């Protein structure tokens, strides 16, 4: 079911066009990734969807209704930068945000305690925000986002400031929410996370949509053009490679994309076998990270020309 539908959003600040004809939709039970470099128009798009600002033109539909103040309660929004009252106790903070989303105090209290327990944070209930570490604050902020059980959850860089253990914990909770049928909109720079979590993506830059669709389809459309080699031996052999683009290179490991004819590569492959010891050789689809860089740089070259 389509929970959120943004149609032809357009927003201009003076002469600067922040969002230019952007459309996307978010389904329930799916994670939608909104990607793009800094200043691409992600935050503006999210602010339009959350009804913080109005677009100059275009429409936002939430459950097929025109989005407005009434529907704000159906959205949980975790902004990129943390917004908590430093001097407030954790529980007071959660109660306030919950009540602002239309919850009753008792209901908010019960839910807040449930989530604090679930996030291993029950002990902090009466601590002031300023006594907490950044990671802890991030957890509190996340709880405040989903406290009122919104059908649409918008997360802007939800993993920043979290250690690996808490990153996993949060990932698991996001996947749980997806299981429960929530629509999740995720904005992040970390492509590995997008690859692990997102079903659909929309890549925007300079306010325009560059790429959108199902993650698997997008990767398939690029074909298998990336080679990963793990080896032992003289690394100089790779310096002879022509018409390839090295993505990642570290000791005994190299990842590159081929632009040349596959036959050249096959020849090189044989050469390689005779010179170094190969542990792993894999022909695969490009990572989302590569696709991201590809699309954005191509676009930028286009603009320069």
């Amino acid at each position, binding site marked *: 079911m389509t929970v959120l539908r943004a149609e032809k959003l357009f927003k201009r600040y003076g002469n600067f066009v922040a969002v230019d004809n952007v459309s996307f939709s978010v389904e329930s039970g799916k994670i939608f990734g909104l990607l793009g470099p800094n200043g691409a128009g992600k935050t503006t798009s999210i602010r339009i969807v959350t009804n913080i600002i109005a677009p100059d033109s275009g429409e936002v539909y939430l459950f097929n209704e025109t989005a407005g103040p009434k529907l704000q*309660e159906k959205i949980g*929004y975790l902004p990129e930068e943390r*917004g908590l009252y430093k001097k407030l106790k954790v529980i007071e903070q959660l109660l306030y945000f919950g009540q602002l989303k239309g919850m009753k105090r008792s209901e908010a209290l019960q839910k807040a305690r449930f989530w604090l327990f679930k996030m291993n944070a029950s002990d902090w209930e009466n601590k002031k925000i300023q006594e907490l570490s950044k990671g802890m604050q991030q957890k509190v902020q996340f709880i*405040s986002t989903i406290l009122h059980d919104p059908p649409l959850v918008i997360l802007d860089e939800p993993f920043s400031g979290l250690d690996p253990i808490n990153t996993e914990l949060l990932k698991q909770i996001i996947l749980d929410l997806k299981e429960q049928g929530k629509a999740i909109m995720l904005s992040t720079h970390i492509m590995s996370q997008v690859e692990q979590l997102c079903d659909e993506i929309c890549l925007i830059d300079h306010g325009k949509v560059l790429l959108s669709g199902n993650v698997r389809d997008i990767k398939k459309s690029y074909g298998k053009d990336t080679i990963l080699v793990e080896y032992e031996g003289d690394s100089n052999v790779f310096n002879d490679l022509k018409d390839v683009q090295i993505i990642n290179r570290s000791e005994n490991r190299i990842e590159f994309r081929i632009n040349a004819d596959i036959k050249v590569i096959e020849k090189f492959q044989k050469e390689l076998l005779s010179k170094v010891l190969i542990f792993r050789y894999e022909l695969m689809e490009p990572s989302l990270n590569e696709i991201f860089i590809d699309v954005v740089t191509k676009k930028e070259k286009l603009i320069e020309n």
Partner: protein
Amino acid sequence: MKISYLKIKSIIKHEYTTRIKSKGFIISTLLGPIGFFVIMGMIALSSYLSVSESPKMKIAIIDYTHNYGKEIVRLDSVNLFLSKKSEAELREKVLKQELDGFLIIPENILDSGIVYLFTGGGGGIAFQSSIRDIVNAVVRRHRLEREGISPLVIQKIDSPVLLDARKITITGEKKEFTEVYAVLGYILGISIYILMFTYGGIVQRSVIEEKANRIIEVLASSAKPFEILLGKVIGVGALGLTQILIWLIVFGLGLYFGAPIILSFFESDIMQSSIVSNAELSDAATGLEIPTISPLLILALIFYFLAGYFLFSTIFAAIGSAVDQESDAAQIQAPISMFLVIPLLFISVVIVNPDSTLSVILSLIPFFSPTLMVIRIAASEVPLWQIIVSVMLMIISFFAAIWASAKIYRIGILIYGKKPSFKELFKWLKAV
């Protein structure tokens, strides 16, 4: 525009309950009355000092009349003394700073009416007028004596007139305590001024805090900027009102239980002095009357505090929303602050002459009303129409302020990194 009262209520509740428990509020509520008494004490002390203490100046007198000098020294033997030295010698001494100055009394003083004062500079207006008054008193007596008027008559002429002002009320007449009410008005006016800006400042800091800590992003995804602004202003205003009511109740109880004790202490003192100074007026002093505080004044105090607070806090909130940190707010506010100081400059004018045209006009200007109208209501009988006009102007300007502030606030809270100019603020006002 539809407004969610439930959300405004949540915001008011949050702003009020988190602050009323804060140390800052409890301490300021406790220290407020102490500060009040310190200010009152300072006013009393300064008026006492300015009357009783004349500056210490060492002034020599060259008396060419060989007569009046003695009498003049007798009136102020601390500062003045007779000198046999010549003018040139005294000039030397003044330059060497062994002497502050010298006074020359010419022989024909009774006719010319001029004495000459030479100083190394300084002394102030009070010092000069004290010299003039002393010489004037002596010269005046000698002029009258020269005309053959007997010293007894002169003494009678010089005995002062006392004004016993009474106020006519429905139930009869009351003693008029003009000075007491003037001092009361002064204190109340200053208190309102301080409170308005204290609480307006709290609103502004809170807006800046929410913006700087990006809390506003979460709030704005839950409620309309107008609801956030209104809820905050009302919540903090309720806090201010709570503080004022606590103080009023404490003062009320203090007066009710404390006044009889204080009065009995003063009573004997007043009776004695009145008998000694003027026996004719002694019947006026019987049945001691105390100044009462009218309910109108208390109502005015509360109304003008709230109205002034709402007016300034919405403007301060708009300025707060447009900047990233407090120091920037102070800069934008500087021109406005200069304008807001005006009532302080006119307080003394209004107290001395509460019903003059200038006082009436100033007290009707909404930005000045909270301070100056309260002073006028305390110090005089303000015509009802003036109060009504002022109340209406306050209400109209509050709505204008919140309309404009909401527009600036709505845009300001989401813009970071640059300090907007006044031109930009006006542009935001015009934005749809």
